[in-house]
């Protein structure tokens, strides 16, 4: 049971190739981290897995527990258990956070079946408490006027509420102070499960002090160029990405 990315190539609409043969397998129960310099294709990888329509997959496959997902729409993938925590979450004016999450949960139910509102709010409040989010966030419009840290916490809240099988967190730590980072990490760690795989995309080793990955990968120029254990992150923090300039690594 895994999210398996095989020889994935993707281009922008203008034909520029961003992903140049990505291979990566995230089994359930494991946390993988991808690090890499700006422009290496990390965020693109997350969007392509989620189904963003600005990218064209030219070859390769992404399978979820053996089933190809590349032909599915964005929302089908989400309902099927893929979750992307956005680096820059959109604001949705006039739509309250509670109604937004409820609409997302409702979308997962068969036609004619409705969410039990009482149970829903009870569950929502419990998760908000975990993330130390004030109750007023249920009534506020999604991400509107939220600080950077509040937006990221809101992404984690949605992730917990939707209970996906595979979570991709795109630079969830960027722009967070240490207190906010700890809260976000607490939420992510609460989601760790043998039934769930996670991919953390980050610039900073600091995140990995709070969410321990099983594996660390380095992405550069549209490919995974190195993989290792958690110690690789420490090495990158110390030495940076200089090694990428060296000719062919073994």
């Amino acid at each position, binding site marked *: 049971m895994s999210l398996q990315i095989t020889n994935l190539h993707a281009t922008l609409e203008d034909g520029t190739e961003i992903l140049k043969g990505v291979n990566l397998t995230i089994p359930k129960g494991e946390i993988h981290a991808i690090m890499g310099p700006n422009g290496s294709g990390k965020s693109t990888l997350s969007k392509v897995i*989620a*189904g*963003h*329509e*600005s990218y064209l997959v030219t070859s390769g496959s992404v399978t979820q527990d053996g089933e190809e997902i590349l032909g599915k*729409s*964005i*929302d089908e993938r*989400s*309902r099927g258990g893929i*979750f*992307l925590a*956005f680096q820059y*979450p*959109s*604001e*949705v*004016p*006039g*739509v309250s956070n509670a109604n*937004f*999450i409820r*609409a*997302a949960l409702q*979308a*997962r139910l068969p036609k004619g079946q409705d969410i039990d509102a009482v149970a829903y709010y009870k569950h929502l409040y419990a998760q908000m408490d975990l993330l130390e989010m004030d109750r007023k966030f249920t009534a506020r*419009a999604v991400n509107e006027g939220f600080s950077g840290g509040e937006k990221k916490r809101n992404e984690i809240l*949605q992730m917990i509420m*939707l209970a996906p099988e595979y979570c991709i967190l795109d630079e969830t730590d960027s722009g967070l102070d240490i207190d906010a980072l700890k809260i976000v990490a607490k939420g992510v760690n609460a989601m760790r499960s043998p039934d769930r795989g996670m991919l953390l995309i980050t610039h900073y080793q600091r995140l990995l002090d709070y969410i321990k990955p099983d594996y660390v990968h380095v992405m550069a120029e549209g490919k995974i160029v190195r993989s290792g254990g958690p110690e690789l992150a420490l090495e990158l923090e110390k030495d940076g990405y200089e090694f990428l300039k060296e000719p062919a690594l073994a």
Partner: protein
Amino acid sequence: MPAVLEQTSSLLESAPETPAYLPAWFANRQQAAWQRFLTTPAPKRGDEIWRFSSIKQLDFSSFQKASASRVNELIKRSTGLASPAAKFIFVNDELVHAESNLPAGVTCLPLAEALVSHSDLVQTHFMKQTTRLGSAKFAALHEASLTNGLFVHVPDQIEVAGSIEVHHWIVGENTAIFPHTLIVTGTSAKVRVVDMFRSADETQPGLAIAINDLSVGKNSRLDYVAIQAFNEQTKVIQINETTAARDASATGFILNTGAQWARNESLSRLEGPGSRSNMLSVSIPSEHQEYDQRTFQHHVSEGAYSDLLYKNSLYDEARTIFSGLIFVDEAAHHTDAYQTCRNLLMSDTCESNSMPGLEINADQVKCSHGSTSSQVSDEEIFYLRARGIDSVNARQLIARGFSVDVVERIENDEVEALTLQFIDAKFAKIAQKSL
């Protein structure tokens, strides 16, 4: 020359007769109005005040007045607030139902009755302002043709809890109605009125030329909500006139979901220092619907505040026209006036036209005006879809959210919920078609 009219009963053919039991001043007003209707030139292409309008919509020759029918059915369908302070139902301008639980001292009567029982009071306030936003000819037709309406007078110090709910139905093919709402408050009074406009059938063409006149007394608060949800074969001219005295606060909210063509002309006169006017509107046209909105924020007095927010979500081939003017008189120093029109373009084939305007003749004023037209961004849609919400629902949620922040400015949960019911019904209809 207009084509020969086949229907001898067309409302344009002969002067309406004022019933004998109504006061002479009113009969005279109706006769004069009819003459004014006949002599006022019809709007024509090239008139600035009708710029971008579909002038062809102004041929009303096929419409006539009709008596009420299907009364019991329409009374049943007149659902609204859970416990209104008063409830009136008009079918083709005939009062068919009235109930009231208003505080002592408040007058809330069908206009035909008030013209007899409160003749002087009605005369003082009835259609006092000159219609200046283009529809003078049709305001004259309204004045000449109206047979009923609602008259509300809230005296000094009386606050009406809850809302007065009024239903206006059009029934029958090519029926014309002339709804009239006249609300007058004394000093430090408070009242909220909700007008709902609907058609008995989905397919029969109708015409409504409606006027609401709001006279807000000193330190009073008057909230007025008009929900226009006629069928999509109906033509509408709706004229809103508000005058606000010293420290008075008026909120006018207009929802447009129905009609084939609707023209809204809204004028607020801020006559006293400290007076406030909120002019709000949400419109959701689809298919070939056209909404034509003309507004005027007239700052007569110094130290008054007006804030206009119009939001349109346009689908399919829909069109909107917004033309607004903030006008600050020479003496109206320290004016605070704002005007915003925002259009959300939900298709590539819809069309929004905006003409915001400002004329300032006083000193030390704070004014801003602006309009925007935008589409829902792909990134926003991606965000919602990445949470499992399909594309149709994602767009609906965004458009609904776009409208909600105007609705919330009604500042009454029950009326907001009622307004959202009509908004949701319209979105459901749009979604149905896009499936």
